[in-house]
């Protein structure tokens, strides 16, 4: 993950008005290029969930108020519900499905299981995408910092203390 990764596949899609009918776009998700036909109003979240069957990013509010849809665009954690899919052309999108191979989970995924950092699991992919970024950003220094910088991810089951424990465990491994 890099803070401001270079655009991988920037295409010359500029200066041409597209839509409102569906347009063919190319999205690079988890290292794979996907072509899909979407209206410009389609969010990155709906493109992932409804068009690419990548349902790991969750729709919790569709209003930018819960963090369940957290994914990375060029390595930075963002909210997929407030991002239009079309704006992600030429950028690399990473979702929970691309975080680690199934056979070898990311240390934070293991830590979430071990520390029981979730109950219903619906906010969990967003929590993990946010938490991995948090550690890389250097914002996991102490609990006060983790609390503040993880507050964009609501867990209604309120597993927060266990989420912090999982983050601490992985932070201290490295």
């Amino acid at each position, binding site marked *: 993950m890099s803070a401001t990764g270079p655009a991988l596949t920037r295409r010359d899609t500029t200066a041409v008005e597209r839509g409102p009918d569906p347009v063919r776009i190319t999205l690079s998700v988890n290292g794979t290029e996907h072509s899909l036909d979407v209206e410009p109003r389609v969010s990155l979240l*709906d493109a992932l969930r409804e068009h690419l069957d990548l*349902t790991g990013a969750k729709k919790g509010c569709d209003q930018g108020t819960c963090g369940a849809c957290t994914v990375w665009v060029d390595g930075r954690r963002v909210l997929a519900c407030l991002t239009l899919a079309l704006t992600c052309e030429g950028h690399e999108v990473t979702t929970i499905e691309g975080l680690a191979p199934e056979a070898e989970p990311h240390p934070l995924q293991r830590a979430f299981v071990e520390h*029981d950092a979730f*109950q*219903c699991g619906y906010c969990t992919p967003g929590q993990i995408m946010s938490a991995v970024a948090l550690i890389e950003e250097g914002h996991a220094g102490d609990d006060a910092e983790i609390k503040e910088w993880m507050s964009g991810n609501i867990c209604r089951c309120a597993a927060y203390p266990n989420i912090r424990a999982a983050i601490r465990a992985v932070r201290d491994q490295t």
Partner: protein
Amino acid sequence: MTATIPSATGQPLDRVDGYAKVSGRARYSAEIPIPDMAYAYVVGSRIAAGRVTGIDASAAQAEEGVLAVLTRQTLPRIAEQPPLIPSLAGTAAPGQTFFPVQDDTVHYAGQPIALVVADTWERAQHAARLLRVSYEETPPVTTLDQGRDLAYEPERIFGGWIPGRSERGDVAAGLREADVTVDGTYTYAANNHNPLEASCTTAQWDGDDLLLYDATQGVNATQMTVSRLLGIPMSRIRVIGHYVGGSFGSKAMIHAHPTLAAMAARAVGRPVKLFLTREQMFTSVGHREEQEQQVTLGATREGRLTAIRHLKLSPTSHFDDWAEPSVGTSSQIYACPHYEGAYRLFRANTMTPTFMRAPGEASGMHALECSLDELAHELGLDPIELRLRNHTEVDAMTGHPWSSSGLRECYERGADRFGWAGRDPRPGTRREGDWLIGTGMATASYPVAPLANPQRARARLYADGTAVVQAATPDFGTGVATVMAQVAADGLGLGVDRCRFESGDTDLPNIAAAVGSAGAGMISAAVHSAATALRRQLVDSAVADPGSPLFGADPVRVVVRDGVMTAGAASESYSDLLRRTLRPDAEAVGQWNPPAHDVPYGMMTFGAQFAEVAVDADLGVVRVRRMTGAFAPGRVLNAKTARSQLMGGMLWGLGQALLEANHMDPDTGHWVSSSLGEYLVPVNADAPDVDVELIEVEDDVVNPLGVKGVGEIGQVGVSAAIANAVHHATGRRIRELPITIEDLI
């Protein structure tokens, strides 16, 4: 009786579905890939009271991709409106006895008045905005202030389960006898559940067969409710709900959307996904009602209660007498000769309120436990000492002994872990910089819910020595798949890694909706019954089989461990038995019949809550610094998942105490908060570390494994402990929930 050596039950095992959840592979009800999916959007009424006089759908219908606009002219009538009965009863369980889009009356803002179905989500949502709806509007009644004078005392509340008034002794006399009385009126903002996953149903017809993927606390409840509403046989409806993204009561009753999704799918001849928006979650799945409670306590100078009066006023819908049962626990958990509890309701323009975590106790115990704190203060008694002086080993309402209690241990261990001893009771005496520090405590209690129906599960052992145990229940975060694998493992005498729990499907044996903290108790009872029945069947088969090393052994002396049946020196594994007898598997159904409702015991879960708060002396900001909860939930099936659920409940109590509020705009009858930006739930920064202490108590009355449940008790009393801590910090008794800055500056 054969035996196993329990080794799995109680262990803090990691969740068996953990990796499915952390990897994003777990599929929730809106995430089932079905070809040719269409999307339904519910159109809610803009007005809160009156009539729909017309809907012009022409612009919506002209939109690209719109498949249908369904209004009361085009949506079919329901076959039958089932009565409102809590889903725990194991019958049809509509959230209210009004089904929308049947006539032109508008009872509440957001009431569905039409459905738009389109080939994409975006098209359905936009087309819905294009409907031109005309209304005839009448002034709504939604708030306590508007409805107070219209109130009546209902005969029964809560789906008919609870009387509107109950009394013992003579409260007036009890108050006359009292040396000290305290009297307080507590007000509560309305609360919304707001699970992170909004309710969703995906509906698919195959001829006359209906398949629903539903986010629900009870797949059977969905099946029965939709069957009655649509008038189609139970045998034609299958409901699946493998993963549910939280509920907290919002998915305990079966609201209109699963049935609307089925109707929409039939109308357009395609599978339909109906995913409520976050905004719609405020008007579609019930809520905890705004309320006012008055508690009057009388006590002797020694701190013995002489009278408890607990009254409640709240709005209900135009069709149901619903109030969460807030005043009943006050009659049960303290020794006191005189009690009066009563509800008053008024008809308001809202949907029927519903269960929300610790329904009744979360609000009722707040008022009671704050009142006790006040009484302790008046009497100069330590708050725990006051509670101990009124401690009862019997249900004070019925006189029946508790099936189990553990409350004294909860006080002791909780106080010990929290460091309660030596607390200076004087308010406003601890200060750290700008922060005033205070501590408070409260009792927690939550009834063990009465069940009506037999609960069933099925256990199947394969010849390779692995087992599948099945029951219909879905998992909405409780950890049921993990816990039931543990229960099954001990019942069968297998390693837990050899047992898989399969659930979330009406094709599996029935289980009532997992509500009222009853899930773990009833499901473990059925699973235990199925697993032990299968074990007996296999042991009996071995000892009767001349080919078995166990032939002739006394089945009572056969012990099973890791899948091997042993009697003295003889042994045979389950696998060997099945393979030798050419059986691919063996199966048994277990059934548990819940105790009768008139069982001569009081059945209650207890706990003790402690909180330390810091209140900014100038700015009125309250932050909770630490919390301890000690709970006696009977037997704990998995210490890890149980602690998590209790911790979550305690943090819900924090939200209830300090953040969570919705209000009706009195003029429009709209909720003023309809997003997670406005309806504030705790975020990570609000949540202190939480200390959960488990006190196991044996209980052979409630169910076979003595499980009393952990879903609700964690929340009960927390708001009182926090409010009492705020009083200790500031000297101010705030009788309003949530407690906010304006109350403290």
